[in-house]
Structures are given as C-alpha cells and as structure tokens.
C-alpha cells in the first residue's frame, strides 16, 4: 500500500456521526448519505430553490432585500456560532446604501472543544452554505464573500472549494447570477491552528494575513470589518438554516422551535455516550431526548455532569441538566449557555479536577497574549488547577481560582478571557467538595478515572 492507501483506511465516513437516521425534523442534515454532496444532488433535494425564489427567476414575483431580512427576523433564527445573536437583526445593521465594497464572511473556524457540526455540514452538504450566503449577500447588497474554514479540517476546505467551483460553473456564483442583476463572488480561506480565530474580529485579522488578535469593539464589523469595510460575519450553520426559512417562511421556522428560539439546531454530542455524533433536533427538545438519541450514558454508568455549549460554557450537574430543554433560553436560565451546541457528557467515573486541568491548559495555550488579565490569568488558572490535580494544592486554592477568574472576566478585549474563567468558576461552584478532597487527600474522589 502507498501512503494514500494507508491513510485512506482511517477516513471518517459520517455513518456513525451523521447518517444514523436519529435526527428529528432535520432541515440541514436531512437526506444526506455522504455521497450526495454535489450540486445536482443538492438541487434534487430542493436546493437553490430559495435563491431562485428571491430572484424571481422562475416567473414568480421576486422578494426584495427588505422582505428577505423581514422573513429571517420573523423566523427568530439566532446565530449558531455561540453568541445566539438574532440573525435578521444583525443583517439589518449593515449600511445598505454604503457606497464602497462590503463583505460577507462565513465563520467556519470551528474550534470550540466539543463542536464538530460545521465540519459535517461543509463536508456533506456544502451547497446549503453557499446558497445561504448568496441569499444573505442579496439581502445586504454585498458582492464579495469569504468562508474561513478551520485549518485542521483541510479535507473539508478542499471539499468546499470544489463545491464553490461547481456553483461558479453553474452560474450560481459570479456576475449576473441566474441571469439576474445579482453579483456575488465567493472564496474559501483556511486557518492553520488558532482557536482565537473563531472570534470574529480575530478571524478578520487572520483573513487580512495577520496574527489572529481580536480587535477592540466598537467599532463592530458592520461598520469596520474586513479591510476596514462594512462586514457581516455569520456561522456556517446559521447560513445553512437560511434556504429552508426562505422556502417555508419565517413562521414555519419559528414554529418548529419555540418562541425566541426558532428552528432546528445541530448538537454535537461527545464524551461519555454510547453514540457520539451530530444530532439535528428542534429547538426546545428536552435534553433527555437528545441524550437518548445519542444512545444514553455509557453502559453501566450514571450521568454526572454536562457542559452544554462547548468547553467555554459553565458545567451543569446532572440534576439541573435533566430538567433543561435544548434552547438558548432554557440553558441560560439554568446558569450556563447553549453556545455552539456542543454537548460534552461526563459520567460518574470522571474527576472534575482532571477535566478542568485539561480545559485550563487549553485556554492558556490559546490565549493570544494581547490582554494582560487573559495572558497572565489563564496561565495562573492552569498552574493552580495543575497543582491541585498533582496533590500539591492548598485549601485556599479554590478561593484563589475563583478570584483570578473573577479578575479576568469582563476585563479583556474578547470573550476568550470569559471563556477561560467561566468553566473554572462553574466547576468550583458545583463540585467544590471534589476539589477540597483533592487538596486534603492528594488524590481523586473518583479513582476510576480513565
């Protein structure tokens, strides 16, 4: 076997994580099998009909940009990248009459630990993102867009480039799209290993060919974005939701979720479940249903805790989590956040100190170093958790951790500082006895940790 053949044996097929048939009312991942990602397959699934509809190319009346934005507002679609900001509202911030160049950017720099949904969307249904971006470009009067893709999923970046090429050849990208007056050029770019570039202004810096250090806000990208021009940045899954909304209407989308939390959402379930993978379900579905879809907690184990929205989200104990529904409002009310929808499940064999040790190391490693509270604070957090894990902790360390975290939070340019602080504070809040046990006995409360 040559190198390619050797490596080919270990490629993910998506069968276990995406084509398991265990979605509920799927819109984005519906009907996919891993082979049907091409333009003709997407069109056979109703793809690019929303674009044809708004342009009125099939004889129907065209939709105006205002009507498109109104429909997205009505749908209550909220940003799927983590912040949950209302998409229609964000689109309405763009200065439509701005005389110069404006940009549209798709944030596919999916690096939040636990999150692996955008990879499957781009790999198995790339045209749905392209169509969503064209519709957004039309709504905001933008003629150039970039999709910035996580460097680690290079094969997915290449797949997306191929899909863009297909769309260009078919007259769906470029000048005079489908014979209309709409012009939109779309290109793919890639990162190369920097968690911070998932932050939208760091991403813009990176796209400009610089270190990915976040910008001070305001000004926000809508007024000063890529190359200093008005720019809208949305997550991959957000764009992927748009074609369905246009085809079926804002009300229909809203109704398949719950008020203020429209539509379906893809949850990446990882950790201690029988079937880790991506599950697309309506917003507001009980967590217990999602856990069942993912095969439940590992056989013979009980649920201990869940990080419901990616590693930056505060951990929740099982008792609180089992009462939650999976939507922005329910998870926020429980004291955490839905974030990117990455659900990290931990069973009763897990040591919270060791888990936090790995997370704190991550934030220290990925801090861009720009703001002192984050640069110094993440290192401090990591070293203190480290010494507790290694049996060198002091009883005062828990208060010290909380104090350091408190002094990072809200004092940095971007949210990485908060993202480093929140898991620490939540772990101590909910599992303090475990930390105290570690300090007193220099060992885990749960020695079964593997």
């Amino acid at each position, binding site marked *: 076997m040559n190198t390619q053949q050797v490596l080919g044996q270990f*490629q993910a097929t998506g069968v276990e994580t995406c084509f398991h048939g265990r979605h509920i009312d799927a819109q984005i991942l519906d009907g996919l099998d891993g082979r049907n990602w091409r333009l003709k397959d997407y069109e056979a699934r109703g793809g690019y009909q929303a674009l044809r509809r708004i342009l009125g190319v099939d004889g129907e009346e065209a939709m105006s940009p205002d009507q498109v934005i109104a429909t997205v507002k009505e749908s209550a679609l909220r940003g799927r990248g983590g912040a949950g900001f209302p998409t229609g509202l964000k689109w309405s911030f763009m200065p439509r009459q701005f005389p110069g160049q404006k940009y549209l950017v798709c944030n596919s720099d999916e690096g939040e630990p636990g999150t692996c949904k955008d990879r499957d969307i781009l790999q198995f249904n790339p045209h749905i993102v392209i169509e969503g971006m064209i519709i957004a470009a039309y709504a905001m009067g933008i003629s150039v867009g970039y999709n910035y893709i996580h*460097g680690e999923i290079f*094969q997915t970046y290449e797949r997306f480039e191929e899909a863009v090429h297909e769309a260009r050849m078919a007259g769906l990208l470029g000048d005079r799209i489908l014979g209309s007056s709409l012009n939109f050029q779309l290109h793919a770019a890639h990162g*190369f*290993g920097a968690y911070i570039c998932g932050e939208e202004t760091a991403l813009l810096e990176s796209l400009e060919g610089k*270190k990915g250090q976040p910008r001070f806000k305001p000004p926000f990208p809508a007024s000063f974005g890529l190359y200093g021009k008005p720019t809208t940045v949305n997550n991959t899954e957000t764009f992927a939701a748009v074609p369905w909304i246009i085809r079926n209407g804002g009300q229909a989308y809203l109704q398949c979720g719950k008020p203020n939390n429209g539509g379906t959402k893809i949850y990446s379930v990882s950790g201690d479940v029988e079937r880790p993978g991506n599950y697309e379900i309506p917003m507001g579905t009980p967590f217990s249903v999602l856990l069942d879809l993912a095969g439940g907690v590992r056989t013979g184990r009980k649920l201990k805790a869940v990080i419901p929205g990616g590693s930056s989200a505060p951990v929740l104990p099982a008792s609180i989590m089992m009462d939650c529904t999976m939507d922005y409002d329910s998870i926020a009310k429980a004291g955490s956040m839905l974030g990117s929808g990455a659900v990290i499940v931990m069973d009763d064999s*897990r040591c919270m100190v060791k888990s936090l040790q790995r997370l704190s190391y991550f934030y220290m490693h990925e801090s861009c170093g720009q703001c002192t509270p984050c640069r110094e604070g993440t290192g401090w957090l990591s070293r203190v958790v480290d010494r507790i894990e290694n049996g060198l902790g002091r009883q005062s360390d828990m208060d010290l951790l909380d104090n350091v975290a408190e002094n990072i939070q809200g004092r940095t340019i971007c949210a990485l500082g908060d993202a480093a602080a929140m898991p620490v504070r939540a772990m101590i809040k909910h599992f303090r006895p475990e930390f105290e046990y570690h300090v007193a006995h220099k060992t885990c409360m749960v020695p079964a940790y593997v």
Partner: protein
Amino acid sequence: MISIESRARFEQEVAKYPAEQRQSAVMACLAIAQQEIGYVSAEAESEIAEFLGMAPMAVHEVTTFYNMYNQRQVGKYKLNVCTNLPCQLRDGSRALQHLEKKLGIRMGESTEDGLFTLQQCECLGACADSPVLLVNDRTMCSFMTDEKLDQLVDGLRAAEGKA
C-alpha cells in the same frame, strides 16, 4: 527555493483577494510552502514576503502565531493527536500514550529515522470521531483504536520501505 508548481498555487490564492490585499494569501502560501518542504524555513518566509509585498517579519509573525506551521524540520509524518477534554473522555490521551510507546518517543519528539514526529494538539473539530489525529496537517484519521494506530504506523513504515 519554492518550486514553480507551488508558485502557481500562490497565484491562485492571491487571486481570491483584492489586488491591494495580497497579504491575505499569506496563510495559504505558508501552508503550501510547508507542504512542499516540510516546514517553514526562513528562506521560504522571505520568498513569500517578497511575493506578497510584506515585511519578512510580518510573515514570521504569522508563522509563529498559528499552531500548525512547523518552525523547524519535522519527521516525514507529523502525527497530531487531539487530547482536549471531549477527546480525553474518549481515549484521546490514551491514543497519544499508545503512540509514544509504539514509536519509542515522547510527545514533541521525532523518531531517529526521521519518519515520525508526535505531537499533542488542541481541538481538531472532530470530537465525535475520537480518538482522532491529523497526519501532516491535511489528513484526519478517525476512531483510532490501539489496533488502528498500530496499523497506521506499520502501514506508513511499510510504505516507506522501513517495515
């Protein structure tokens, strides 16, 4: 020296951006150079700087900021194993330990025959596929049980005639 083929790929990347924003292609150019020569040499940085009209130091800033650029020569196969929490919960760290044993090196080191470099890395964005690793920045290997890790290492050694 960067080859003519790589330079042609540079041109394709530059064409994605406005004429006065050639610098935007630096990430892609560095990745292409690394693919060709195995790492980002100072020579490659200055060639790219000249090609894009950047200060060499501005290129070097990019090389050193992003985790995946190799700042020195690495083994022919760089194996990056994710050990972040979701992977740690599903044998990611165990996979790294298994490779340390199999290759007889610690993470961060290279084998004496120059075939392998082993590294721990942060989230690859494939958490449901754990244990997961990235080979030479571009090829993701999923569900890497100990048997599959052995198969991978043995297979690559055989492909290089060093079985």
